[in-house]
């Protein structure tokens, strides 16, 4: 049995579902809206940032360039993309269960582990596709409409200016970490999908967990201090670390580890449960 055939099967199913295009369409529309809004009135938007530094710094050249626009787009959208990912991945097992096709799938000569592994692979590929599409739109549209230039980023430590020649690898790294974070959401939703026989439950549960963890992560209460570093939601915005100077290698490595450990935990739970699950639908 060729495992790629199973992954291909999953891709055929994802590609045939209208809801799969909802995420791609939503990202396209949102990026277009943000980019054109910045084109229309971007200077006043960034003046909120630059105004506080104008007495000490002089800004020259093309500040509102494609690199900054891409950064703004990413910052605005990466928070919302998990919903679009969960919409598809949360349905991969439970949707088949609800449709009745899971019993057909599992009575073919393929092990349950292979079925689940192909779902995970397909989910990761869909997530990668969404991230790449977001990147192409944000950077492509941004650079196409605003040109290139140095990237000015305001973070908690202050204003960081990254030279144009130093930006591309940072975007590649940022998208890779963003993919890892989004794939953690995909893995969580697939794991939850194993426990459900309807497609809505895992999607809602995934979003509820993200909201709960985000609240725990942002609440400035000491009781949560010990668990906050271990929540995957704390590391969802780690892609931003690629635009810091000096480059926080330890911080990024830590985030990658936490996200990977979440992957392993969600995989282990789902493989353990799905292997033993009685298919009664």
């Amino acid at each position: 049995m060729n495992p790629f055939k199973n992954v291909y099967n999953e891709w055929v199913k994802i590609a045939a579902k209208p809801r799969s295009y909802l995420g791609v369409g939503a990202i396209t529309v949102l990026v277009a809206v943000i980019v054109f809004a910045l084109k229309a009135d971007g200077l006043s938007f960034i003046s909120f940032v630059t105004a506080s530094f104008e007495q000490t710094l002089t800004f020259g050249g093309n500040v509102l360039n494609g690199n900054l626009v891409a950064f703004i787009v990413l910052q605005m959208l990466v928070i919302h993309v998990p919903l679009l990912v969960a919409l598809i991945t949360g349905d991969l097992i439970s949707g088949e269960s609800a449709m009745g096709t899971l019993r057909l799938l599992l009575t073919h000569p393929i092990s349950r582990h292979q079925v689940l592994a192909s779902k995970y692979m397909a989910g990761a590929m869909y997530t990668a596709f969404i991230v790449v599409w977001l990147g192409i739109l944000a950077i492509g549209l941004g650079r196409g409409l605003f040109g290139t230039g140095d990237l000015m980023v305001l973070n908690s430590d202050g204003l960081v200016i990254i030279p144009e020649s130093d930006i591309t690898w940072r975007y590649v790294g940022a998208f890779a970490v963003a993919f890892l974070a989004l794939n953690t959401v995909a893995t969580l939703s697939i794991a939850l999908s194993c426990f459900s026989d309807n497609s809505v439950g895992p999607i809602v549960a995934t979003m509820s967990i993200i909201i709960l963890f985000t609240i725990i992560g942002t609440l400035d209460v000491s009781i949560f201090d010990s668990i906050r570093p271990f929540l995957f939601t704390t590391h969802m915005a780690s892609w931003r670390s690629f635009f810091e100077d000096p480059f926080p290698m330890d911080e990024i490595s830590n985030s990658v580890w936490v996200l990977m450990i979440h992957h392993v935990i969600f995989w282990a739970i789902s493989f353990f449960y799905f292997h033993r699950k009685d298919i009664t639908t």
Partner: protein
Amino acid sequence: MSTVVSVSHLQKKFGSFQALQDVNFQVHAGDVFGFLGPNGAGKSTAMRCMLGLIHADHGDIRLFEQSLTTNKVGILGRIGNIIEKPDFYKYLSAEANLKIFARMASQPITTTTIHEILDFVGLLDRRKDKVKGFSHGMRQRLGIAQTLLADPDLIVLDEPTTGLDPQGIIDVRKLILRLKEEKGKTIILSSHQLQEVEMIANRMVIINHGHTVIEGEVATLLNAQDCTVKMSTDNNPKAQDLLQTRFAISSVQQENQDIIQFSVKKEKIPMIIEVCVQESIGIFEVESKKQLENYFIQMIQNESI
């Protein structure tokens, strides 16, 4: 004759509900095996256990003389099935659905084979249509096509005619008969249509309350059963009295004004007719039948006592 399926002492509990208590049966190569039982008897659970969808708590399931526990994937490669209803990916065409399952088969399945199978079930012209537009009967036929994809040695059909109109039932019945006669498949057929099982199956098992009530050859089991006799005479009250007093038949009923009905051993029927004639009772018509339906009801009732 080789044993294709051997199920022994199968038990399954869902929470506090004992779905299967002690299910035993054997299916031989070439059998069309009727799988009967009232609703909630445990038929679907037993079938799902047999296909590895539900994990049995106790018992042994062997298919093709191999344990399902140790060689599930290899065994499943030799089985085609429809469990309960044929559900497919509605947003894909009939052909695309079959291609998905063909890619999962143990051996390569060509598009030509898929077309031949679609032709066999009468769906070749509709192969490009999405399944969401299919009637229940068409889905049922597509389900049978799906079972045939990998040219399986065993076909498991759970309620294949449920929800079909009379023409659909006839079509599916013909398909099953063709599978038996033209392709020589071993078939397990669960159905509420007892007449259907009676027409198609050569062996059967009856399950009730999660355990096997009886298993054997359909013809042998029915022969051991009393016939249901319908008799029309010119003096039904006298005939009824005669049957009760002379032949000790307690099951005599007046079906309507003209016909009385009773159950009796087949061998006694000539004697009954002879005695009626001697007693000057004019007999217009005698009809005797051995029906699986009666046998089934009798078995289930005996179980309940």
